[in-house]
């Protein structure tokens, strides 16, 4: 048991070192851009996984919180001159507050009806920001003024700086998930996901637990929104409330393994890598075919391994360290 735990810490330490050194070794701006995308979407996936994976509430509306985070910090920066670092936290709080009425409405519905209602919430926000031009630039959106190298305003000349911020966000998301998974809250979330009635029968206030975890999930997703618009120096409703963000958040977790700590990370790495490779191999010769291949791979994964690819890796790993496999399984299942 102790051996396993220390080997886990060893792997984590090794991974951390590799990730910290990576932008120093790989200096191609294109590569770093892909790394940043991977870290960012892994982080959004981790945030989604709390409500969508552990508690199995299939939200397809996380773009609402991504967009609220993005708009809150941008409005504060441009209209009031407040640093996006503070705006980021403000955006998180706005998203948390927005999640309360949204959750109160949507959690009345179960299963696919819940998913559909969450799609609607993100669309409503997009329409609001499109229509009310006086409030936030309407459909044209706005560019974020480039101040050169201004760390206090979350602007950097070196791309690596953005990489480290995204890495930091992902680390925070994983740490929060780890803490939750190993507490009573984690048990309650899984119980709600498995059978809400049975959970209520043993004293779990399912509505309250779902509300609380949804707030945490919304908060984290909003941080990603602020970071993203700071990174691309541009915001409009289509970017901030894009349905693809909601889908990607769910997809990376589902492909990697819902309700697992590392599932969204594995899922993002595989999906982004596949997508980038297909793009460079097939994108120039047969326009559009890379999306077809990508979709086929996605369908194959979901049919072949509906529990996610993390379980494949876990099996392979267990086969390699057969001696410790029984104990690993025990530890994983007991949380």
């Amino acid at each position: 048991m102790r051996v396993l735990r220390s080997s886990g810490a060893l792997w984590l330490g090794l991974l951390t070192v590799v990730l910290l050194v990576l932008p120093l070794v790989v200096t191609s701006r294109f590569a770093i851009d892909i790394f940043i995308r991977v870290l960012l979407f892994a982080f959004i996936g981790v945030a989604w996984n709390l409500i969508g994976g552990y508690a199995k509430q299939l939200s397809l509306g996380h773009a609402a919180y991504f967009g609220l985070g993005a708009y809150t910090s941008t409005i504060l920066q441009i209209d009031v001159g407040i640093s996006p670092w503070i705006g980021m936290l403000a955006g998180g709080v706005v998203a948390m507050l927005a999640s309360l009425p949204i959750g109160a409405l949507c959690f009345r519905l179960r299963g696919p009806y819940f998913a559909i209602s969450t799609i609607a919430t993100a669309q409503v926000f997009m329409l609001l920001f499109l229509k009310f031009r006086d409030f936030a630039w309407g459909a044209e959106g706005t560019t974020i003024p480039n101040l050169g190298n201004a760390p206090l305003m979350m602007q950097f000349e070196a791309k690596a700086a953005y990489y480290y911020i995204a890495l930091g966000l992902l680390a925070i998301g994983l740490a929060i998930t780890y803490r939750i998974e190993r507490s009573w809250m984690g048990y309650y979330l899984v119980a709600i996901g498995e059978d809400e009635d049975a959970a209520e029968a043993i004293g779990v206030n399912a509505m309250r637990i779902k509300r609380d975890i949804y707030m945490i999930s919304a908060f984290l997703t909003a941080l990603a929104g602020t970071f993203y618009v700071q990174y691309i120096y541009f915001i409009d409703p289509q970017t901030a409330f894009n349905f693809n963000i909601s889908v990607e958040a769910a997809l990376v977790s589902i492909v990697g393994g819902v309700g697992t700590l590392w599932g969204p990370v594995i899922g993002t790495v595989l999906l982004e890598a596949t997508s980038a490779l297909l793009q460079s191999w097939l994108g120039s010769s047969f326009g559009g075919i890379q999306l077809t291949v990508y979709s086929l791979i996605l369908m194959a994964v979901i049919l072949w391994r509906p529990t996610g690819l993390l379980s494949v890796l876990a099996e392979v790993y267990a086969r390699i360290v057969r001696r410790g496999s029984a104990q690993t399984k025990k530890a994983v299942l007991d949380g």
Partner: protein
Amino acid sequence: MGDALVVRNLSKRFGGLRAVQDLSFSVKENETVALIGPNGAGKTTSFNLITGFHRPDEGSVSAFGREIVGLKPYDICAHGLARTFQVAKPFGAMTVLANVMTGAFLRDKKLEVARARAREAIEFVGLSAKEHTPARDLTTIDQRRLEMARALATEPRLLLLDEVMAGLNPAEIDQAVALVGKLSKRGLTIIIVEHVMRAIMAVARHIVVLDHGQKIAEGSPKEVVANQDVVRAYLGPGYVHVAAPGE
């Protein structure tokens, strides 16, 4: 001894169907009461009304001196009423231990405390050997045991068991009967819904008979099996009670 549960004039309609009509009964502390009757008589609905899963149209339920109609299921559980489900509802992806720990968190949020209490409950129902088995891999009787352990982990004073013996073979029924007896000895008040008459005669001190949502008889097991209304509605004219060992 005082009353653990007092049900007064409880009624519930589903559309045109009167599932439960004007039902009244009471359960004394540390007593085991059985609720019997044909399918559709309103037994499970009564459980759902008492435990807050359905809201009654009329009537009151008082548990340990407190009115509980209108409370949510989790509040009622916190008040000391725990139930099992007719169709077992284990948290399939979790191990037996994790399932029962989820129940134990009601009284203490600390992992170590919950784990110790869960182990105790698991041992009590005789599932210790399968502590690390995912709940979805359990056999029927073990799933029922798990439900009982999970309910026990919430430290209830009143336990409502909904057909925990359905689908069990005769040997397993004997084990389940022994388990219910052990729970009662522990000081728990028990309400049990059951079709297996042999089991009911062995565990229940008092029987309430329902038919078409109404109470048609109540009394000691001997009185109930001799009651002509009960024989006509439920047991059938050929019913002969064979005394179980230890009765």
